[in-house]
């Protein structure tokens, strides 16, 4: 399990842990480009769809029965706030893709409500990303993306799609909601890849 342990050895977290241009907040600001989708757990479903159209799906009961991790990670929003040491529970993307046969190099995350974001597949593997359903020991609140959201802490937080519905595996890259509207295709906070020209 990939857990960021920086700062848990007694050292105080400070500005050196902030990517360029970020400030620290202890709040958890809610950013939303639309109304909060309300999805009942009985109708909720998560799908992985490969480039050949093969679908794997999980009901809520199946999904929450998968082996879960409890990552503690820093998150960085492109609107310049960062929050240290956030605690989640979720299923790693490695686990979701373990039995999936694919040659894809790109992923589009699709949300209930229509939001999309694109990420190279390798950026989601090897313990770098989860589908999270608990935050701070409690079920993930709808305003923060519950029932379940993507969690990709090494990228700006718009890549961590709320209300996740499907991961679409693709041979080609397909820019998502913000990536087609002026934001950077990759969104690495340590390289300060905010806008398309960065």
């Amino acid at each position, binding site marked *: 399990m990939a857990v960021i342990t920086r700062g848990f050895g007694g050292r105080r977290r400070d500005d050196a842990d902030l990517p360029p241009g970020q400030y620290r907040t202890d709040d958890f600001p809610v*950013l939303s480009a*639309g109304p909060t989708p309300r999805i009942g757990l009985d109708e909720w479903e998560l799908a992985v769809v490969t480039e050949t159209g093969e679908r794997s799906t999980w009901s809520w009961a199946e999904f929450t029965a998968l082996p879960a991790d409890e990552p503690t990670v820093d998150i960085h929003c492109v609107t310049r706030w960062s929050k240290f040491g956030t605690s989640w529970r979720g299923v790693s993307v490695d686990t979701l893709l373990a039995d999936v046969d694919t040659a894809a190099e790109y992923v589009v995350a699709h949300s209930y409500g229509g939001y999309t974001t694109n990420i190279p597949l390798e950026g989601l593997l090897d313990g770098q990303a989860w589908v999270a359903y608990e935050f701070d020991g409690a079920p993930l609140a709808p305003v923060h993306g519950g029932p379940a959201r993507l969690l990709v802490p090494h990228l700006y937080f*718009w890549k961590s799609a709320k209300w996740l519905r499907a991961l679409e595996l693709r041979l080609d890259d397909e820019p998502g909601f913000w990536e087609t509207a002026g934001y950077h295709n990759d969104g690495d906070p340590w390289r300060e890849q905010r*806008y398309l*020209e960065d």
Partner: protein
Amino acid sequence: MPTTNVGADDPPWVDGNALAGPLGEIMGTDLTVAELTCAGCRMTRPLAAMRVFDRAPGLVARCPGCEDVVMRLVRTADRALVDLRGSLVVSIPVPIT
């Protein structure tokens, strides 16, 4: 008709006049009186009637009827991007000559 839902349980939105300022600054014309035709439901409404989600990486205007996105406005370091793929027509009144 409410012009905002701030204070509600849902993410806050404000009315389309919130776009008029930044758009006017970019385009040099008053767009509060512009009308947009939603590509989702094809209803035509004044910009002011749209719901603008402003607590996001950009300003996102949605149709109050079908909730589809009709306009997005993003400020980068040195550009402003206006994405109108969600609007079939933008109708702007002009002085009668």
